[in-house]
């Protein structure tokens, strides 16, 4: 079980370093075709054929984004995603061929940020990848965003200490530093994935206001009407687990709101 990471060529090396993507997919044709297609868009693509290889490859290299198939030999995509989430908040895009509720929900519960159903057009997949990467480097502060854009997916909280009161928001025992991108709960740093952080910032910008799922899907995930609001529900669920269950309230039939104070 060696990591058979076939390092793709960098065809578009304009930036300081190309975005590196790990694709874990058992079907050889899809694996190779996705690799070729993404490389055309300028990504550096490594591939792995099963879950355990994928985990090894993930640990061996620093990736900006993972694309995981759900049905994989050895360790399935859900299990792989769970294991990855234990040690990293790198953006994860799931690829499901079944597309039924159980697959999708399990993937999102395991911590995936988004999902696509096969067969997916390369253009669509690239749009999803871009949306995910935008989130990973998101900051309301444009300068800092530009600074951080080059780095790998941030864990959102490396520039703590620069916090000034006007961009540190407090909700009960929760503090959100919108400049330092750091979230603390009762003094302890909370590790959020970029999607979760982006979602929390969306709530923090309008505390006490009900945000409907469609709006969140548009603002955070860059989806139009075709988006599946389950990704919002499940991300809110994960966010609640990390920042405290009562912090985000469900308003039935409408959406969610952040509880003030």
């Amino acid at each position: 079980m060696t990591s058979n990471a076939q390092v793709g060529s960098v065809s578009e090396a304009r930036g300081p370093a190309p975005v590196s993507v790990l694709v874990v997919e058992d079907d050889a044709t899809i694996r190779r075709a996705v690799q070729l297609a993404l490389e055309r868009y300028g990504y550096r693509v490594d591939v792995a054929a099963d879950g355990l290889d994928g985990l090894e490859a993930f640990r061996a290299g620093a990736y900006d984004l993972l694309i995981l198939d759900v049905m994989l030999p050895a360790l399935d995509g859900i299990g792989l995603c769970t294991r990855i989430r234990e040690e990293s908040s790198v953006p994860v895009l799931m690829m499901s061929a079944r597309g039924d509720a159980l697959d999708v929900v399990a993937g999102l519960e395991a911590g995936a940020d988004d999902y696509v159903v096969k067969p997916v057009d390369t253009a669509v997949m690239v749009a999803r990848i871009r949306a995910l990467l935008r989130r990973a480097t998101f900051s309301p502060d444009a300068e800092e965003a530009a600074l951080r854009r080059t780095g790998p997916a941030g864990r959102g909280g490396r520039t703590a200490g620069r916090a000034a009161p006007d961009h540190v928001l407090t909700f009960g025992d929760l503090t959100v530093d919108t400049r330092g991108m750091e979230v603390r709960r009762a003094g302890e740093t909370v590790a959020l994935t970029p999607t979760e952080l982006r979602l929390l910032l969306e709530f923090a910008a309008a505390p006490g206001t009900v945000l409907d799922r469609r709006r969140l899907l548009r603002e955070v995930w860059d989806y139009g009407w075709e988006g599946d609001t389950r990704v919002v529900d499940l991300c809110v669920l994960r966010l609640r687990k990390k920042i405290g269950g009562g912090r985000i309230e469900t308003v039935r039939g409408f959406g969610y709101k952040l509880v003030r104070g």
Partner: protein
Amino acid sequence: MDLLNPRALRWKIAALAAAACCAVAAVVGFLVHDATRERGLRVGTERATTRLTAAEREFERTGEAPADIDVRSRAELPAPLARDLPPRPAGGPGGTAYATWYDVDPPNWYWMWGAAVVGGDRYLVVREDMSAEVRSLQLLDRSIVKSVLAALLVVVPLAALATEPINRRLRHGARTARRIADGDLDARIGSAGRARDEITEMASAVDHMATALQNKLDNERRFTADVAHELRTPLMGLVTAAGLLPEDDEAAGLVRDRLRALNALVEDLLEISRLDAGAERARLDPVPLGELVADVVRRTDTDTRVTVEPGDADEVRTVHGASAGARGAGAVGSAGLVETDPRRVERIVVNLVANAHRHGAGPVEVTVAGTRIAVRDHGPGFPPELLADGPRRFRTGASERGRGHGLGLTVAQGQAGVLGARLTFANAPGGGALATLDLAPPPP
């Protein structure tokens, strides 16, 4: 539930109890009334006879009747007495003949007449007032009626209450069955440790049915999901690989075009099989319908005009926080928001518009008014079979093959069903096909 429904089991059983109560009271009352009346008559007769005997004895001794006894001739006797008495004493002075007659003329004329022959044309006549007996009989009747009413006052509510446990179990069963029908296949009635009776038997039969249904549905869903996986995996490879072919190559263009068609066919088939398996559930969100439809139509990249009309005043209802099921779909909010599943509305509208362009003729017009979306073209209109039977799989309007596979309208119809909406097909008065999707159809 419906306390006032006169056909509710509760009131039926209460009425049955009341009827049984009344029947028993009527029989018992009649027997008691009859026996008491008989006794009253016997007492009256005895009293009259005793007085007659005493008077007779005194008459024999003194030749005079006591003051309270009339001595009358036969002609003066009331007719019934005269009829019953023999004209002459049968056995000389010792043997006497008696007759009694109960003279009734309600409401207050109750007399017991007695007469005896005392020789010649002389009759001793007594009259006993029976009104006391009659009054007590009336009192008895009244008290029987009163006690029946009192008993009914107790029995009817008790009977109604006694049906409550049965009612509760039946309601629970009905609720559970409805939940199963609404898609909660794990719902079971259960027996809750009750002894076997008809209701637990029915409950276990329904539970059994639900289990069988669930297994069947689960199998179908698994099959659909497996088929989807098996079909989509090679398609994914094909689609991605075809995307790598050169853009300006004609042959590559042909491959990509047919691949798109194949892809659409597979997705439609999978969607129909999911719809058939009943695996689909609407996910409702408040959506600005006009905006949604305009957006969706724009992305179809076809020459289609969209008109959004403000809804009629009576159509604008502020129904918020609708139920999670499809039942609550399609309520119009104050801001033109419609509680619906936008992805399914998108599927339906895209299919209708594509169908209008493929089988009809331009201009294709889409109109949104309230909760209604109408798609109209100016072609030959829907074929009569479609108007009569609705859309059928692989049955296209055009007789030539290869122009669409006829699944689009089937999918649209199925998705409308999931939304709790109604999709109707008609031909517009000025010619052309008119498909109308009503997200909040009036209940049938």
